[in-house]
């Protein structure tokens, strides 16, 4: 006959395991998701309009997105896949002749006199229709940023930095990077940005 000395004690040894399981579940599922995306600066509303900025036609790279997603680059239809290459060719052209104050010593482009003088002068003008799909617009923006990043990464390599430009930017915006490292990165980033400034205009540009 079984003994009836009260209920046997429940073994609570595995309680810790169960609690750990829950804990790990919460830890894993509630990772604070960091959003990511394309950073852009909008043009200020009222720039000092005393003098009109006049740009040479050859220093402007026009990109127009039609309402059905067609792309008009420099007045020609272009496939989106070729946009990056075309933008790189334009930015890196370095058309100014040697001795000119605009001469670009670090450009590796075709140096065609028909295209941009210097990456510092080169402006990409982006226009779109109200009916344009947002996804197409983002793809175009992405390709143009990719063109700049390509050139900036190349510049970083040429300057002998052990990180690419995009890596440096990432490290700079990372909160865990120590301040002294950030200071050094800031100088390097600034230097590359000066070589290839991102001039992506969405406002009207005047030509002469």
């Amino acid at each position: 006959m079984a003994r009836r000395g009260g209920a046997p004690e429940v073994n609570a040894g595995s309680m810790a395991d169960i609690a750990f399981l829950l804990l790990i579940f919460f830890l894993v599922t509630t990772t604070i998701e960091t959003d990511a995306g394309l950073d852009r600066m909008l043009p200020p509303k009222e720039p000092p309009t005393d003098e009109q900025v006049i740009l040479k036609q050859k220093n402007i790279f026009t990109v127009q997105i039609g309402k059905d997603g067609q792309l008009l680059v420099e007045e020609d239809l272009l496939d989106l896949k070729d946009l990056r290459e075309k933008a790189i060719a334009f930015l890196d052209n370095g058309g100014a002749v040697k001795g000119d104050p605009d001469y670009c010593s670090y450009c590796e482009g075709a140096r065609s006199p028909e295209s941009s003088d210097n990456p510092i002068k080169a402006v990409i003008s982006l226009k779109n229709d109200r009916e344009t799909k947002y996804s197409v617009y983002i793809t175009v923006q992405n390709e143009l940023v990719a063109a700049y990043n390509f050139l900036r990464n190349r510049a970083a390599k040429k300057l002998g930095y052990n990180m690419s430009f995009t890596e440096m930017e990432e490290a700079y915006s990372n909160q865990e990077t120590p301040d002294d490292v950030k200071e050094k990165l800031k100088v390097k980033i600034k230097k590359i940005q000066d070589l290839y400034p991102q001039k992506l205009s969405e406002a009207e540009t005047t030509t002469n």
Partner: protein
Amino acid sequence: MSKFKKKKDGELPPVSTASLPDIVFMLLFFFMTVTVMKDSEPLVANELPNASEIKKLEKKDRVVYIFVGQPTEKYQSAFGKEPKIQLNDKFANVSEVGDYVLEEIAKKPQEVQSSITTALKIDKNANMGIVMDIKEELRKVNALKVNYTTYEGDAFKNLQ
């Protein structure tokens, strides 16, 4: 013979693990209460486009969110199928965007107010018209730093 019996070597008294569950539960409750799941219920469809050249929005306390997209099925009868703007947890007109952003910026601590980014979470099926209107509004209130929030991926997937 000796009164004090010598204990056998290496026989340490086992550490009691009875309080371990309590400690772990404490941690568990801490995490459960601290993690906020979501601050607002999405009223609009929000399938973001893909992009590859993205940058992370590291500082969450310096971000103001604006959602744009087609109203979810629940709200389609009332608001139609055209993409709408969602600010916090209600629908808004384009004209309200500026005030909302200023309000949100004013809520942030003083030292970060000058470096606020506006994260535009726009559904990939939206038209540029509404985006251009929002950008115009943001320019009016001088909130010039924007981030087109996207998923990480091949940008050409957007075109399909």
